[in-house]
């Protein structure tokens, strides 16, 4: 017990550093993927057939293959095939590669949720806007968007909770996120080795963060309950 109390500050410190990297990846992914998903959704709903087919194929590939493989390919492909890595060196380069992989992967999932949300708004809403002389973009932003957001909050919440845990996949390209930090005390780091308990701690970090996410998105859902 004494040993654990001694090691605790070192472990917590390392986990915090890893967790900050995890949070960074989490927020960067959301900031990139939430709007990009909307663009992809419009692409797959486009009346221009080649565009909608292309987007659907891309979404199929991205959703149909493991994110882990996508990360490996994004990170190593340029270096191994063209002999020239484009990601820069060290942790910053790994982060850029991971962020791009995550943003693209999650944007594809979000796009399908958005598509359902947009389709779910009754056609009468668009027609009412049209006969009132609104433009297509006014109808989208002033009439349909909020109704769509209301519909998609629960499925997006699901996806965001998955994202919290998925950030750990970035470990595959050695991004030093929280699991990497926790695991390092199994192998040996800063004089601590063969310890499993830091990993339990990392699980706790995820649990707390997912609690925060659930509460925040639950609040948003509640806020949109003022209309039906």
């Amino acid at each position: 017990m004494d040993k654990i109390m001694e090691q605790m500050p070192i472990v917590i410190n390392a986990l915090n550093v890893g967790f900050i990297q995890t949070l960074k990846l989490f927020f960067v992914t959301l900031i990139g993927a939430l709007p990009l998903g909307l663009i992809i959704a419009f692409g797959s709903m486009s009346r221009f057939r080649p565009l909608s087919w292309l987007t659907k194929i891309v979404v199929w590939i991205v959703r149909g293959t493991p994110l882990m493989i996508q990360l490996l390919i994004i990170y190593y492909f340029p270096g191994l095939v063209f002999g020239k890595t484009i990601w820069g060196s060290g942790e910053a380069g790994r982060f850029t590669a991971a962020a791009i992989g995550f943003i693209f992967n999650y944007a594809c999932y979000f796009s399908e949720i958005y598509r359902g949300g947009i389709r779910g708004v009754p056609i009468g809403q668009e027609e009412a806007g049209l006969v009132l002389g609104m433009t297509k973009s006014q109808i989208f932003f002033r009439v349909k968007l909020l109704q769509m957001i209301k519909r998609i909050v629960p499925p997006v919440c699901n996806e965001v909770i998955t994202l919290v845990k998925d950030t750990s996949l970035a470990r595959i390209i050695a991004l030093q996120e929280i699991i990497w930090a926790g695991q390092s005390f199994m192998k040996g780091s800063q004089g601590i080795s063969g310890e499993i308990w830091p990993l339990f701690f990392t699980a706790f970090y995820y649990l707390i963060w997912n609690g925060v996410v659930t509460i925040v998105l639950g609040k948003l859902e509640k806020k949109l309950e003022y209309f039906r």
Partner: protein
Amino acid sequence: MAILEVEHICKSFGDTEVLKDLSFSLEKGQALSIIGSSGSGKTTLLRCLNFLERPDKGIIRVNGETLFDAESTVSGQEAEIRKKRLHFGLVFQSFNLFPQYTALKNVMLAKELLAKEKKDYKANKKAIHEEIEAEAAELLRQMGLSDRMKNYPHQLSGGQCQRVAIARALALSPDILCFDEPTSALDPELTGEVLKVLKDLAQKRMTMVIVTHEMEFAKDVSDHVIFMDEGLILEQGSPEQVFEHPKEERTRQFLSRYTGQKNVDI
């Protein structure tokens, strides 16, 4: 001169001919009722007038200005269509109010968005906004909804929703207001309050095209009646002519189904 002239309108969906060469005209300040069984093309006709459907053939003129001519290709631009649409208003069977806005905001929204396109909008933003709000409040008052302005659609009854929808359409002061079975989604108790609003509008000489199954109301309120059957105008004339002395056997047959049926008091 007629305010609305419709000439030789045809519309097909795939192989189904929904409108087969329809022509009619309407004088300013008159109420036209369109009756006929379901699937006779009444709703499609209204949707053509409001540019929600594009007729395959035909011409639509308002105040002598050709708004739509199937022969001409220039009439297809979105901005153009938007402007032309504003000659017409449309009240839907299922109201289609915007659920996230209050009754008042539902009435104001389209006008606010239009005002933004004006050049002097930025300078007089506040005054313009207040004017639109006052007009919207007045319209809702006329609909008997003064105490409901701050309510959201889900807090209103069907009849109240439909009256908000009518106020919303009136806010843009259309030349011609179209109603697509405005009471079909309402129970009989609520039908009366909406029909009363329509009657008031008819008395104020609002030009209206009303697709309806309320025969008693059509007889009572309209100046002109069209009976449609299978995409054709089978019979038209004054309410007296069409209801009391129908020429066509099909019209008689259709109307006989409605006689003896209890109608709503208005």
